[in-house]
């Protein structure tokens, strides 16, 4: 009878000094790699921050005359620059998430990630490292953009800044997880670009980032009703709404008829946890690393 191979091979693990990696430590290393790579590719900074900032400046100037948001009894209007600022912040988070996950497509097949995939680590550790790295980068870039808020009538307190940073981090984790789940399934970067155009950009566009959620009335068209519905169920709507409230706790927020802040936090947290779980499940459940 044939002997089973496992019975005959002595385990020489000790003499070889085989060790087990701590998954958390491995995640931190992988996140650090993301940050290090980013710092060494200057063009990525320009890509993720440049375009949203240019949009903000151009749209603010262009829409300034046409956009009026009456701010209740105090009679003060909000400029488009103010309205669009939180939306631009979220766009920067989205762009950073896209840039840091698009590299997965090639990295996994013919790059550094190949060696991560054959390392004795749970898959979530790799997913967390990649996503946390991308999210930290997004928060840093969002923070840089936040400096421009000094040109707006926004009052910053330490507590407010902490809340903004926390909301940015949650949203970045969620968006990077979403990018991860999409990129992991992709065969080519072209495919990712297509998804970005037809899914990720509309996701942002219909979040109240660029125009407010329309209020419904008796003469609303079906299209407006549809749009309203989509914006209500889009989790990003609540992140943008939360950002609006954190930045402008006065009249602008009340004029927009935004959902309560607690609800904004809750939806953002749930969506982030859900997205991260989907990313982990995507990376674990598939054996698509093959040709």
């Amino acid at each position: 009878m044939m002997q089973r191979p496992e019975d005959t091979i002595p385990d020489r693990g000790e003499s070889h000094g085989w060790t087990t990696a701590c998954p958390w430590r491995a995640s931190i290393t992988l996140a650090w790699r993301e940050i290090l790579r980013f710092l060494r590719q200057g063009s990525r900074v320009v890509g993720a921050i440049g375009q949203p900032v240019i949009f903000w400046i151009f749209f603010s100037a262009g829409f300034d005359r046409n956009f009026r948001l009456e701010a209740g009894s105090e009679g003060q209007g909000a400029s488009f620059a103010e309205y669009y600022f939180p939306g631009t912040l979220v766009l920067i988070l989205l762009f950073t998430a896209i840039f840091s996950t698009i590299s997965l497509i090639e990295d996994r097949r013919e790059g550094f990630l190949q060696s991560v995939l054959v390392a004795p680590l749970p898959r979530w550790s790799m997913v967390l490292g990649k996503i946390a790295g991308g999210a930290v980068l997004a928060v840093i870039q969002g923070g840089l953009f936040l400096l421009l808020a000094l040109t707006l009538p926004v009052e910053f307190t330490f507590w407010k800044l902490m809340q903004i940073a926390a909301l940015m981090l949650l949203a970045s984790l969620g968006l990077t997880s979403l990018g991860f789940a999409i990129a992991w399934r992709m065969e080519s970067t072209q495919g990712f670009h297509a998804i970005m155009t037809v899914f990720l950009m509309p996701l942002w566009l219909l979040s109240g980032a660029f125009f407010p959620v329309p209020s419904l009335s008796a003469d609303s068209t079906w299209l407006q009703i549809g749009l309203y519905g989509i914006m209500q169920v889009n989790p990003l709507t609540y992140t943008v709404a939360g950002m609006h409230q954190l930045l402008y706790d006065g009249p602008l927020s009340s004029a927009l008829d935004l959902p309560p802040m607690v609800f904004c936090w809750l939806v953002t947290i749930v969506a982030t946890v859900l997205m991260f779980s989907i990313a982990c499940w995507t990376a674990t459940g598939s054996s698509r690393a093959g040709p």
Partner: protein
Amino acid sequence: MNTTPSAIDIRDLTHRYGLRVALADLTLQIEPGEMFAILGPNGCGKTTLFRLLSTLMRLQSGSVYVLGKQLPQQSDEVRRRIGVVFQSPSLDRKLTVGENLRFQAALYGIRGRALVQRQQELLDHLGLADRIHERTEHLSGGLRRRVELAKGMLHRPSLLLLDEPSTGLDPGARTDLWRYLEWLRDEHQVTVVLTTHLLDEAERADRIAIFSQGRLVALDHPEALKASIGGDSITIRGQDPATLRQAIADRFQVTAKVIDGHVRFEHPDGAQILARVMEAFSDRIQSITLGRPSLEDVFIDKTGHRFWSHGEDDAAT
């Protein structure tokens, strides 16, 4: 009864991509401490086998034990014990040599003094000590492959798997690579398993498995494989090869084949038969070649077609 423990023990392994069979009913044992080459043209199934053994792909059917641990149930145990060197670079080009190694070490839980010591050993041995602070994007192909080897050996695996390791290397770098692999086998008893499509490279291995269209067609020591050919090979180009083949077979009682428009047969005394063939059929022969048996002859003998032919290329993975 077979009591020899195998480094890799594959039984009845079949793998499909959709309808296409990439590996068909493969049974193969690789012994500990041997240098083993998996040889075949593109699309023969060797990359699929590499990906299965390196735990990148899931097994569909059959059983595979690597260093006594079963795939996929004990994947983590396997991963801890094997080193993998990929065909496409797995280095982060934006990071330095040292950073690449440190990041690899983190994946295997190697740190502190052990890391410093192993890193130093490997860099010294691979002639990379003065490159530690250089970004890998600035290194030559040969040096990059050495860093890949250092990455693969950092956790001191007992089995090193390499996918087409000499692709893109100049002859000097190839020699270095083989010298290092032989050193690993001889000094550290590391089992080295590599895939290759280069016939001359495979000859340096202790044993060769030749694959064609997902099937194992030959398995033995290089010399034994060549000896199995039965002598020198004679290849003849001439008009109407089918008739010529028949005429030669009838006259000299040899088994001749027509391969790619050439008549081909083997004979223990090539020089003598060549002269006799020339004498008999000089008017029908355009050229005639006498060759010592090569691995390509083995491949032709086992598959009935040349090493590089359409059937294989079409199925490239």
